[in-house]
């Protein structure tokens, strides 16, 4: 491979989003191994500030940010703009909001 840039897509085994109750969407980044997990955790590319910038949302809408070591995982939760399934909503399960994380570059 000529490409020498590494992104979350390369290091994570699971990148997913899903409802956490009716008012939130939660995101799970689960890494292939301890090394990949520590590399991303220590790089700081995933932080409340970087997520706020990536999704163009104010910092207050990120209600939870957790480094979950038993699963080699980083997890964060965003408050929805309206409850899931309300008229105007487009992702009832919140299950397709993770895609922008794929291309986040990791040094």
């Amino acid at each position, binding site marked *: 491979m000529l490409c020498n840039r590494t992104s979350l897509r390369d290091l994570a085994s699971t990148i997913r989003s899903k409802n956490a109750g009716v008012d939130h969407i939660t995101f799970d980044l689960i890494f292939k191994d301890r090394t990949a997990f520590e590399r991303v955790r220590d790089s700081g590319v995933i932080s409340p500030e970087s997520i706020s910038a990536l*999704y163009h949302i104010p910092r207050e809408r990120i209600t939870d940010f957790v480094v979950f070591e038993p*699963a080699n995982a980083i997890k964060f939760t965003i408050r929805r703009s309206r409850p899931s*399934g309300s*008229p*105007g909503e487009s992702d009832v399960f919140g299950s397709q909001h993770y895609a922008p994380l794929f291309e986040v570059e990791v040094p």
Partner: protein
Amino acid sequence: MDAVTILCPTGHLGFTPFEKGSFLAGCEHKPDVIVADSGSCDIGPYPLGADSQASPPAWQKHDLEAMLLAARRLGVPMIVGSASDTGTDRGVEQFAAMIRDIASEHGLASFRLATIKSEQTPQFLLERLAAGMPIKGLDGRADADEVLLARTDRIVAVMDAEPIAAALREGAEVVIAGRASDCALFAAPLLNAGLSPATAYFAGKLMECASFCCEPFMGKESILGRIAEDDIRITPLHPRQRCTPASLAGHAMYERRNPFYEHVLSGTLDMRNCRYEAVDERTARASGAVFIPAAQPMVKLEGAGKVGERRLAVVGIRDPYVIENIEAAIAWARARLSERFGAPDQAGWAVHYHLFGRNGVMSELEPSPPAHPHELGIVVETVCRDAATAEEICALAARNLFYARLPEVKGTAGTAALMADEILIGKPGYEWTLNHVMPVRDAFELFRTEFHLVDGRARRAA
């Protein structure tokens, strides 16, 4: 004391039919109890608000039948919670009727069925409010008031393990529960076996979605839990799945804001110091949960209310100039709608243009909507109190894209493709009005248990 064994075939009974192969393999282990949850908020507010169901009855019956026949053959209890997707009284009665039908179709010997209802009326909550009892908003919501309750059509309260455990102690062999915390269904028999609430609720938390806590990813396959005090062992029953420390820990964070805490009516499960270890190739073990009893028991309330009638239209756009100027075209369409029907907020209507191909999936959270997509698929969603007006607004909202007024448009015979010049009738729009908690006297106060003798042979003879 020997470990208690629990067989769980599905994380949402009836949502799709569960796989019988791994379930029957699980029955060979002679589990002490068979448990499945049947509800979810993920399906949106419509099923609760309209008191409808999200799963086809044939699939619900498929799952209930496999569980009931196995449970009666093994002579062990069967527990199903959040009956028929929402856990309303309708759902409990529907599942109880299915249990009776299955029993008579198979001529099953008599058994005791317990139903536990959890639906609450808006009137009851209004009386609580009037008596000065707070109904506190969760997740940043405001506390409930009369206005919010007036907008709420249907409410369920979420039980913990206590009413289910009590029904089992009184001899229930099949329990059909209304809305319940998923983990509570598993915790109930474990509490009765003398295990701590920490072990009981943590085991439930790990097992509630069946094969989702194993790898590789497979839905609707059975798992077996062997649970002793502070020692929870999970084994998948599909031969190609494994339960590993990573898969089990990964599941502990699934569908929840925070992987460290789980709240139920009687307290909070603290999972900050939980440990996940391999037992063998296919079995993982979890331990280390702590249960903190609530000083004041708080019941969670879920409620949904109708917003209005919904109509939908599908419109496609291929002209690159119109695509580039779609915001201007929509603004013009909205202005014409307001002229005719009044300002949306005051007149009580709303139009949502879902722009698939640009940001139809993520809406305002989309970080990189393409400026020049090849084509746009637009779903025009309209909501209004009155169905005839919703239809008229939807037709105009869609056709105004066909007649979009843009200064340099060349396609003067139509600026949009109508997939069909047709307005689709959507289910009414509902919203989650209640995601709240309310103090209760104890874990039993809001829940209503009834016992029924089901005799499949007598019913068949009759």
